[in-house]
């Protein structure tokens, strides 16, 4: 059972990492629009961004 001393902290560390990633995602607004991102992925990038900005 000594292996638990390694496995349990490892599991807890992973959980903390996952939670940290999730908190970051919530704070940066990734969960504010769940539908728009799905639709936006379908766009063709037919205008390079720089061009639209300069116009």
């Amino acid at each position, binding site marked *: *059972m000594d292996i*638990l001393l390694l496995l*349990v902290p490892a*599991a*807890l560390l992973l*959980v903390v990492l*996952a*939670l940290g990633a*999730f*908190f970051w995602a*919530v*704070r940066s607004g990734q*969960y*504010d*629009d*769940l*539908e*728009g991102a799905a*639709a*936006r992925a*379908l*766009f063709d990038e037919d*205008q390079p961004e720089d061009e*639209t*900005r300069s*116009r």
Partner: protein
Amino acid sequence: MDTLAAAAQALPAPGDAYRPGFVDPTAYARAGADGHSTLELAVRGAHCAGCLRKIESGLAKLPGVTQARLNLTTKKLTVSWTTGLQSPAGIARALHDLGFHSVPYDAGAEADHQRASERFLLRCLAVAGAASMNVMLFSISLWSGGDEMGAGTRGLLTWLSALIALPAIAFAGRPFFRSAWRALRVRQVNMDVPISLAVGLAVALSLFEALGGGGDTYFEAAIMLVFLLLIGRYLDLRLRGQARSAARRLAALQVAVASRIDEAGVIVAVPVREIAPGDRVLVGLGEQVPVNGVIEDGLSTLDVSLITGETAPVESGPGAAVYSGTVNLSRAIVVRATAARGDSLLAEITRLVEAGEQARSRYVKLADRAAALYVPLVHSLSAATFVGWLVFSNAGLHGALVHAIAVLIITCPCALGLAVPAVQVVATGRLFERGVLVKTGDALERLAEIDVVVFDKTGTLTAPDSLTLERGEYTPADLQCAAMVARASRHPLARALAAAAGPGPAAADVHEVPGYGVEASVDGARVRLGAPAWCGAPEGGVGATAQLWLAVAERPPVRFSFTDQVRPDARETVAALARQGLEIMLLSGDRPACVEAVAREVAISNWAAGLTPADKNARLIALRDQGRRVLMVGDGLNDAPALAAAHVSIAPANAIDASQAASDLVLQGASLAPIVETLEVARIAKRRALENLGFSAFYNACAIPLAVVGIVTPLIAAVAMSASSLIVTLNALRLASRKPGP
């Protein structure tokens, strides 16, 4: 004359008055320190990837725009541009040209509060989820391999569970603890009290056992309960937020026109947002006061129920302050504006939305009352379970407490409390998306019960903007005289006549008799404009067209005829309603020849003509006394009493303010077809609400005895209780099948 003609050109077409225009968002733009300005707009009609792309790329092409991003879930568009290179009005106009209506988003409190609560719940949910899975990992090891482990390992796993569960519960349980504490502080109980108590007891008992070095712990039950409950809370909050923002969008789009009186005394129809402080505005009978102001001329009765909640009308005269949203009930008045529209609009919208939310349905009241009785019952039942097990069995303190906790958890009346509101939120949210503003909480319940539909003719079955004045035997002087009287009225025929005559002054001393016409004084003579009999014309009028008669003193009355068309989808809507087994009636104040023509065109065999407002009201009361449940669809001033008397009522977007105020639902847009869908949604919603109530009653009837006799452990209780809440929410969500809009 040239200037008049030019002014007439500049005037909106009669139909424009009813179409929601675009609102100037200049006041809502925020200039940042980095040389960029930002504007948030609520966009209506964006549903799919195509719309998203059209809007984002269309706006990005505008000069100066650096970013345009549309949130498809909240329909909120954020645009940034280099300050000075672009104007907020230019952006709104460009959006309008792309085919999307927009209104400025109140960037302040409401939206931020919703977003903050959503994020808060999401964080709690994540912590509770991660923690409950890890605690479960240790608990399952303890349950399955407990015999093979040494005491040291068991202790380690138990303490690890506590180490994870305690901080997680303290963090993620806050929504429940705070709410319970708030309720307890004012000496009340809500559903969060038994939840908090159960979680607290389970944790305390487990800690006690762990310290004692053995026995069963219930950390996993406590954290799992918090996690599963948070799922329901989060879904509920998100649905409510969406429904509320859709309601605000709709309410904000009800942009009306006001009649401004310029220096020469000429009445000009302008969008309400253009009214500035100091402007004089004519508020006709049945119209809403467009901006805050002071009465300058006229004595009238005002309905202030939307502002103060006072239902008795108030007499007001010159010098009295009036607020936007007040409905003018007896005579035309002149108001001098003291504030701009923008200042009063948001407050008005908030009031409108809140008034709708507060009017609670009968089922919600029933469920609330049941829940209020239920909470003390749960506490006594759980206390009785504890005492019973302690005294009459050898389970001991520990066993008795575990059973009491299981009872507390399993009987939380969450499903009961969610059963109806969840259905209502989903149903109204879906209708908001389709452009139907649900004004009262129980409107859908009443709508589901109807068996008769009564339509009004002019402006309801016929399209309000299709009315055009025919050439006739009247002279231009007659037309100008009639128009002076007509400008003070909101009746569709009067509006069409005023539009045909162009802008000009209004008559003084105007008195409107609903169902008959308008009386006023023009150049010292009494003038009547209205129904044939009222103006001394031959009874029944002439021909089958809509008409107004003008009677000036002793001269023979003059006729104005109008051509109109029924709404394109009127026939289809009537047929669809008839197919559902509803009886359809057409009640009109117009002449029989006209009404018969329209009745034939839309295939309604049961019609009545020549009715006064009192007759209409009496017919509805007669139907009610026969036990019929009537849906009234009407728009005019003469319909307002009937709309209020009907079991449930719908007003189209062009309806006069007094009728919109009296009705339960308001349609947006020019189509009648949403009536059919609204009825369908109302019926499904009623079925879902009853299913949910039945299910939660059944759940409680089964689960409570099991928990009291000690068959259920706290963990199973947590899963069963949360599952019942989730089932109720998911059942409600079945209503939300969102078809893409037109």
